[in-house]
């Protein structure tokens, strides 16, 4: 009897290991659960990748534009390249940047308007970008953030924003120093205050670096333009 129980237990263990589903139908719950556990184990065992430090010499070998995006809360970062450049009905040039593993951020004249592939994405946002060229945000006015929160829903946050010029600043990005102006956008709402910082090229108006709020789950993100 005990031997039979052992054989049966071994069979069940085997079935657990070999649980599988094939064909264009939905997989059973147990199969999905076991697959996920297997994936998690594999992920934990995977060796961590080491990266070489960034140097200008390395960046000079790269021909396409790149930005570096860092989630400030946990120092997770990635390099992104443009996927789409768009002139639509809204003022400002829109660039959608993407990582290799399908996380994207959309910037309108350097101002964050959407994220995808993060948690609690910024679905869309209005900006204080002005028509007529790159300048970063300008002046004052309302902004709205539509954030993915809750039960497959979104929450729209209405903010009253104003931009102040904190004066010239020399900004270094990987061995190159740019002459920039530091613009600070302060947005107030009932549920809190958002402070976004932009370092805008004194001549061209390009946003070289920024620190912007990407919603309550992702917090502030830092963006640097590495190559053009």
């Amino acid at each position, binding site marked *: 009897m005990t031997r039979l129980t052992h054989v049966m237990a071994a069979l069940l263990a085997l079935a657990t290991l070999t649980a599988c589903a094939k064909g264009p139908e939905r997989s059973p719950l147990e199969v999905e659960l076991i697959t996920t556990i297997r994936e998690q184990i594999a992920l934990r065992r995977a060796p961590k990748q080491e990266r070489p430090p960034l140097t200008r010499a390395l960046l000079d070998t790269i021909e396409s534009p790149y930005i570096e995006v860092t989630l400030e809360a946990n120092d997770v*970062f990635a390099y992104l390249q443009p996927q789409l450049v768009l002139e639509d009905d809204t003022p400002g040039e829109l660039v959608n940047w993407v990582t290799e593993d399908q996380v994207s951020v959309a910037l309108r004249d350097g101002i964050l308007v959407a994220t995808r592939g993060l948690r609690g994405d910024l679905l869309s946002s209005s900006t204080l970008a002005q028509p007529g060229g790159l300048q970063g945000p300008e002046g004052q006015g309302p902004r709205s953030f539509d954030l993915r929160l809750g039960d*497959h829903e979104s929450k729209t946050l209405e903010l009253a924003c104003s931009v102040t010029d904190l004066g010239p600043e020399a900004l270094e990005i990987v061995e190159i120093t740019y002459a920039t102006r530091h613009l600070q956008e302060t947005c107030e709402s009932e549920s809190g205050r958002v402070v976004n910082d932009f370092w805008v090229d004194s001549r061209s108006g390009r946003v070289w670096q920024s620190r912007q709020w990407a919603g309550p789950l992702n917090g502030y993100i830092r963006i640097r333009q590495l190559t053009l």
Partner: protein
Amino acid sequence: MTGSKTAAKHAGISAGVLTVIALAIPYSPAQAQTVEAAPNFDRPAQPSLNFYGSPGIIDLPSAEHLPEGQFTTTYSWFGGTSRYNLTFQALPWLSTSFRYNGIQNLNLFGFDTYYDRGFDVRVRLWQEGQYRPAVTVGLQDFAGTGIYAGEYIAATKNFDVPGLGGSTGNLKVTAGLGWGRLGSNGAIGSIGTRGSFDGGDTGGELSVDQWFRGDFAPFAGLEWELDDRWGVKAEYSTDAYELETQQSDVFERKSSLNFGVEYQKSPQLRLGAYYLYGSEIGVNAQIQLNPRHPPQQLRIPAPLPVVPRSQWATEPEHWTTDWTASESKRTQIRDLLAEALKADGLVLEAVTLKGNVAEVRYRNNRYRSFTLTIGRVARAMARTLPPSVETFQIVPVRRGLGLSTTVIRRSDLEALEFAPDATDALVAVTGFQNAGPLPETADFSDELYPAFATSVSPYTAPAYFDPDQPFRLDLGVDFSASYAPAPGWRVAGTIRQRVWGNVADGRASNSVLPRVRTDQVEYAQFDTTLENLYVSRNWKPGSDLYARATFGLLESNFGGISGEVLWKPVNSRLALGVEANYVKQRDFDQRFSFRDYSVATGHASAYYEAGNGFLAQVDVGRYLAGDIGATFSLDKTFNNGWSFGGFFTLTDVSAEDFGEGSFDKGIRFRIPLDWLLAKPSRNAFGLTIRPTQRDGGQRLSVPGRLYGQIREGHRKSLLDQKARIWE
């Protein structure tokens, strides 16, 4: 498109958001302040729970309520008394609980250990104000045998007080009046007379004549939250535990004061240790989940952006419709589209291409939200279809049934993706309508029809509430296969191999009705069984109508023929259906033979989607035991797949013939796998709990009933999740 994916492989820079590297980012105090000040929509504060699984002190309730939608499970134990509780906060001011309890060594009513089930309900009369306390009325164990029957009115007020080590603390003061069990110690008065507890009763009836009758006694309690994690509690209990300490000898009650200390281990888990009634040590483990706040947020790969045709179809000849005439061109487009959908885990069923209009039918086996898949399909269409196609008709398909048609204009997709209010702007110009019949000119996917699917999967089959052993379990492996020869047709079967289990040792049936469900133990005597084997066909007999016919071994207990027709317009919250079945009871060995019992059973059903996710259903008809009556059910559902609800069935079977419980009733809940694992999935853990499983008011369990499959693809569900259309 600017920049291609391969360019990312340059010179050692490769991207990857998941790789964590500690960069020494200079973090100025001013920036730390902006993090503090930023808007935050965290989990709302949640009260701690008592030994009955409701907000409260230790053994007594408070007036607090949980955040709306909160689902809690608690296990408490002291002095031989154990209670498993499930509580659901259905409305901001209304919560319900189900409890299974065991009292060791009670030695009354013919049981050593006395097990019982009970339901509670709590209603908040008003919220806490600046000066006034919150007030709640509660009925504890209000139906059935009522071993814990008691009613109360409680008031709770919060005060800011210092906490531990300089942190801010909070003091909750509760006072109340209890009746029944909660008025059995230190009574100060009495209202009328109260019937007494009868442990041998069949139960199941509301004890209206007992509520707020008999002695009443004042109780009080304190909870001091020392910081975010630690709390201490003290209370004066008005429960005399007469049954346990006077009629029996379960424990000794030496004092009316209880004390405890609790620790919040995570937002979901709280643990407590207590000293109760001057003699007993107790423990309480509280798990609180909120459907709106998953333990981890789901992260799904970003979609590819829509590239406006103006960027790539620059010559006039790009815009002709000549391609429609070429079959090879159409096949090429179909294959491109199928590839694009596959990248998102979706399966192309068929595509119909006309010059300016394209209809895509697809199957979604991956994502919970149909709105999300509609957005992904629209993007795939924008990526692969010739520029002349301007109108997209998107039809999700389930088991051959087109659920609805979403009509989106391609130029809207191109113009609105990065608009400031992208979601509302797109939804405003999107149409939802009935899915018409499959066009004759449709190009079917190569990979479906005929299609085979197989799975090997472990299974568990539990059995509850046997007085000798409250929980029994069988486990083993299911071997399933299905074959779909043409859209809507399906042949499917499952062979079940039990590996281990003890359901077979359960209680034999004592039912006087035809034993349509209580022969579970007889059916559990066999290790290798044919769980089901059937042919089914789904089709749409008309606009807004859905039909199903199923023939074969439908479930483990019955085989026969089943037919169903459902009326559900895409834009309607109401649905009506009829189902008719003629079935024969299967032999206990669950192979191909049958027992003598056969029955014609069927129902007329009405379904209504009320506001706030409430789903009401009424079924009137004839049940498996030949009894006639109606089932009423109400479920609170969430977009993310959570649901929690209850049902009861009244039929012409008398309470006496029905047996324990008097009539069929139960609660059910569903916790989606994707919510738990933060990974896309359409599966869910579901559980239906009946206090007692009897034979009256039982329905056939046919695979593939229509309503649940259809509703998710209709306008209300799609719009409730509109935020996901661009995701």
